[in-house]
């Protein structure tokens, strides 16, 4: 009989990850993501891979520290929940290719998996997204999360994804960030994150995971509801206009 090592519940809205640890087994978890655990599990917070890698991860939007959870003496159960409600997906690294993950998407991994940041440079996801991706190499299981549901898209040839919807992809794919003029709203709308027609074009063979919602859309929606600092009548009149204008978007 095979014992399940992990389970994802309540997807796609409120996915939580249950990990079954054998005695002595360790899991690396995003710092702060542990929700509940058996009392035999001990926590060790550490900068995995030393200070430089830790700093790299922090730049990547993840926290500096990753937590290591180890089942001491007997098997135990660990319940991990990402900070943002959404979905969780599992991937198994076989050593032949690595996985690139959107910077805030890491949830948990086996200790045999190495997590680094990869600076994207000018090619990066500069549409209000992070400039960094996390690169997972090595072998073993890794779990990543999204806002909204996660869909697996097998790419053969040429596929385009809005940069804000990318969760993860295999590095067997070539990618380039470009602007699709046909999708651009720049000059038409202002103050909106995204909507600038920036897409990531993937080429080759491999898998891409996309999320069905993006956090920026929620932020954009809430923006006009924020209270407005008014300093004098002129600016408050202007802000009223802006507020009214926000209805017309």
């Amino acid at each position, binding site marked *: 009989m095979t014992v399940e090592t992990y389970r994802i519940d309540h997807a796609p809205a409120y996915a939580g990850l249950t990990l079954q640890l054998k005695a002595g087994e360790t899991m690396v978890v995003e710092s702060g993501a542990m929700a509940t655990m058996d009392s035999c599990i001990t926590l060790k917070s550490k900068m995995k891979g030393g200070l430089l890698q830790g700093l790299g991860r922090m730049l990547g939007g993840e926290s500096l520290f990753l937590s290591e959870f180890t089942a001491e003496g007997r098997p135990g159960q660990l319940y991990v929940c990402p900070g943002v409600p959404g979905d969780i997906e599992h991937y198994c690294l076989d050593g032949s290719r690595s996985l690139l993950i959107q910077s805030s998407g890491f949830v948990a991994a086996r200790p045999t998996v190495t997590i680094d940041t990869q600076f994207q440079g000018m090619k990066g996801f500069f549409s209000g997204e992070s400039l960094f991706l996390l690169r997972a190499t090595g072998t073993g299981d890794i779990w990543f999360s999204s806002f909204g549901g996660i869909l697996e898209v097998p790419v053969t040839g040429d596929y385009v994804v809005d940069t804000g919807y990318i969760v993860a992809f295999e590095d067997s794919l070539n990618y380039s960030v470009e602007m699709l003029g046909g999708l651009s709203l720049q000059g038409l709308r202002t103050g909106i994150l*995204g909507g600038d027609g920036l897409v990531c074009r993937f080429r080759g063979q491999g898998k891409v995971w*996309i999320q069905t919602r993006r956090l920026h859309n*929620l932020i954009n929606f809430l923006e006009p509801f924020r209270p407005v600092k008014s300093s004098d009548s002129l600016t408050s009149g202007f802000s009223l206009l802006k507020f009214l204008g926000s209805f017309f978007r």
Partner: protein
Amino acid sequence: MEFDLLKRPDSTVVHVSLSPHEEILAEAGAMVAMSGHLQAETTLRKGKGGGILGGLKRMLAGESIFLSTFRSGNSPGDLYLAPKLMGDVCHVGIGSTGSALGGSGSGLVVQSTGYLASTPGVVVDLGFQGLKSFFSGESIFWLDISGDGVVFLSSFGAIYEIEVDGSYVVDTGHIVAFEKTLTFTVTKAGGSWLNAILGGEGLVMRFQGHGKLYCQTHNAGAFGQLVGSQLPAREA
């Protein structure tokens, strides 16, 4: 053209498979991912109605919507479309497509944020429901949907249908769309204005006639006020 609704009911996304030389119209910004060769074009659509009165109506109503068209060209392709907020998507047949799907096929009036996408046979116009909709405090313009095809509606929260025969009352923040066979007036919910305001039910839409209503379980405006008012103030 084939489509699928995935990740229902809270993070619903529409997966559309296009045959060669097909196209689909969607709200701008709805595209999540698509085949690399699809051609996309975004245009600003303005309301109809000429003359001073038409122009004035448009100005008051702020009627304009950005719509993107996706064309497959010579080879088949697929794309994913998602609404902006958490919630569901449903599809409604219009015209003879609607009758074939077992519905009435009646044209729809859709709240502007309730529109996600439509097939090419569907005519999307910017309708004007008069100043009454302005005073309802909700989204100011409505889309007038007619023609023949399928339209995708999106909701904040879940979406549910109500068959109206006679009259029916809906809170202004919970309406997604209604069939054109219905007419509405904006009115107060309680017996007196004081009652209506203190009761927190402000204004409601009173529908008359025979037809279908599409409602959403949550009120996006109320949610926005609840969360937004607690965020730090922004610079004017």
